[in-house]
């Protein structure tokens, strides 16, 4: 096996096994910090050992065993320093719990990471680290914060979980509805990180994260089939995922919605997404945020050609969304639709009003650059592309923005 194959095997094992290793160690040792550190050490060991010894026949089993050994080593080291409590934990055996339809080890991990006693940003960061296996720098970039601040946030969260004894389990049926909205917010952000992955050495689309977010959202839907927002989020993810392969060109460049080959869209995912959106429309209940976003995507994916897009309906849906979620990012996306309906001049005026809030966000500058280009303001457009390229963390997006900038007259 050559070095590239080993490298790929390690990457695949990381995508498939990270959350399982962390979840199983958390269950065994009752400590997220130990689980995370031992999992990271096990993968670091694989990086050294697998190229020399070959990839083990059961990579997941090898990683779990190695991580377990690392965790026990750490506990022994700490107990030698007099921490008897840790030593006791090592022998602590959780009584077996009944295994139900939703007894997924990773779901348990998610409900702990998305606990309401933690701040929302902390929940997302912790889920991306523990369940998604993202590194602290990747998470820091996704949040537009400093690495040190992100590292502190995650450390503090783990310490709080331990000190206050946040339980490691899926909540009871009566508590479930209240806990689900927090989990949905977290899963949506995990999906987004996968769909527009950050980092210079990262694939532009991380299918591992998008498929993991979809898989976990499906699990929650199986659990709560009547919940409109669960259905909405799943539909939104499916309709977005359906366009995944059309979204990056063979040369690794981002392909925007208007340029995509619609024949490349995954028809089965589109059909499933549309079915869910219709189901929610038929329910006749006022839609929440995810259902509106799903409806917007349903309008896009219903158009066989970009020229057939019903932009007035999209703008109307954004108006509905702004009512629920008056965030500048929603306003920016609405402006993109407004450009198609009322022209780039009107849209640019709306985008410029968001400068104070979005000056550090690459999509703000990319949107401005495109609108300025359409208005023939090449010089201003170039400056906006420069700023967008500087801020963009996704390789495909950087390639796309660079080409557009270089094509300016």
């Amino acid at each position: 096996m050559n070095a590239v194959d080993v490298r790929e095997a390690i990457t695949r094992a990381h995508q498939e096994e990270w959350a399982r290793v962390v979840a199983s160690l958390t269950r065994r040792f009752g400590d997220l910090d130990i689980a995370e550190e031992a999992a990271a050490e096990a993968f670091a060991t694989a990086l050294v050992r697998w190229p020399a010894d070959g990839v083990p026949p059961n990579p997941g089993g090898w990683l779990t065993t190695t991580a377990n050994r690392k965790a026990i080593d750490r506990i022994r080291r700490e107990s030698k320093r007099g921490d008897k409590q840790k030593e006791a934990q090592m022998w602590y055996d959780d009584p077996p719990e009944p295994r139900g339809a939703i007894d997924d080890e990773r779901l348990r991990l998610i409900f702990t990471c998305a606990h309401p006693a933690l701040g929302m940003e902390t929940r997302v960061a912790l889920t991306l680290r523990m369940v998604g296996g993202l590194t602290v720098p990747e998470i820091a970039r996704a949040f537009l914060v400093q690495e040190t601040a992100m590292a502190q946030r995650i450390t503090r969260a783990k310490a709080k979980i331990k000190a206050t004894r946040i339980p490691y389990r899926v909540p009871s049926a009566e508590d479930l509805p209240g806990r689900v909205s927090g989990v949905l917010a977290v899963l949506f952000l995990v999906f987004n990180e996968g769909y527009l992955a950050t980092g210079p050495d990262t694939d532009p689309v991380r299918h591992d994260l998008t498929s993991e977010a979809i898989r976990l959202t499906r699990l929650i839907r199986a659990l709560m089939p009547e919940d409109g927002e669960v259905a909405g989020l799943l539909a939104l993810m499916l309709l977005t995922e359906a366009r995944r392969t059309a979204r990056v060109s063979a040369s690794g460049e981002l392909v925007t919605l208007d340029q995509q080959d619609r024949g490349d869209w995954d028809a089965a995912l589109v059909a499933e997404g549309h079915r869910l959106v219709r189901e929610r429309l038929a329910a006749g209940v006022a839609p929440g945020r995810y259902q509106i976003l799903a409806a917007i995507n349903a309008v896009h994916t219903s158009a066989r050609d970009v020229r057939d897009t019903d932009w007035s309906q999209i703008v109307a849906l954004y108006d509905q969304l702004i009512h629920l979620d008056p965030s500048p990012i929603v306003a920016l996306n609405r402006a993109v639709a407004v450009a198609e309906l009322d022209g780039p001049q009107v849209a640019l005026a709306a985008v410029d009003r968001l400068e104070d809030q979005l000056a550090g966000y690459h999509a703000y500058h990319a949107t401005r650059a495109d609108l300025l280009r359409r208005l023939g303001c090449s010089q201003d457009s170039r400056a906006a592309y420069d700023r967008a390229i500087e801020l963009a963390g996704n390789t495909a997006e950087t390639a796309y923005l660079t080409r557009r900038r270089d094509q300016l007259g």
Partner: protein
Amino acid sequence: MQYLFSVIDDKTNSGTPDEMAAIDVFNERLQAEGYWVFAGGLNSPSTATVIDNRGVEAVFTDGPFVESKELLAGFWIIEAPDLDVALKLAAEGSKACHRKVEVRPFL
């Protein structure tokens, strides 16, 4: 594990008879279900005295150790298996006493 529920108020001695009755009901439930450790209401911060005996002799200072808009009006100490149980009880306690409650675990 034991948790401290601190009752946060912005006025002193402001409990109403209805609130006292609701607190009694909640306390009885805590005792009946085995969560109860201890509870009490506190007099106003203006009745506090701070003692510092770290030096040569004890120094007494009139008033609370920190002046703030919000004050500790009372507390519960409860025994619960995990934070989910503690948070649920704290939510009921907050409703009973009609005030905000902070939950903190003991070390």
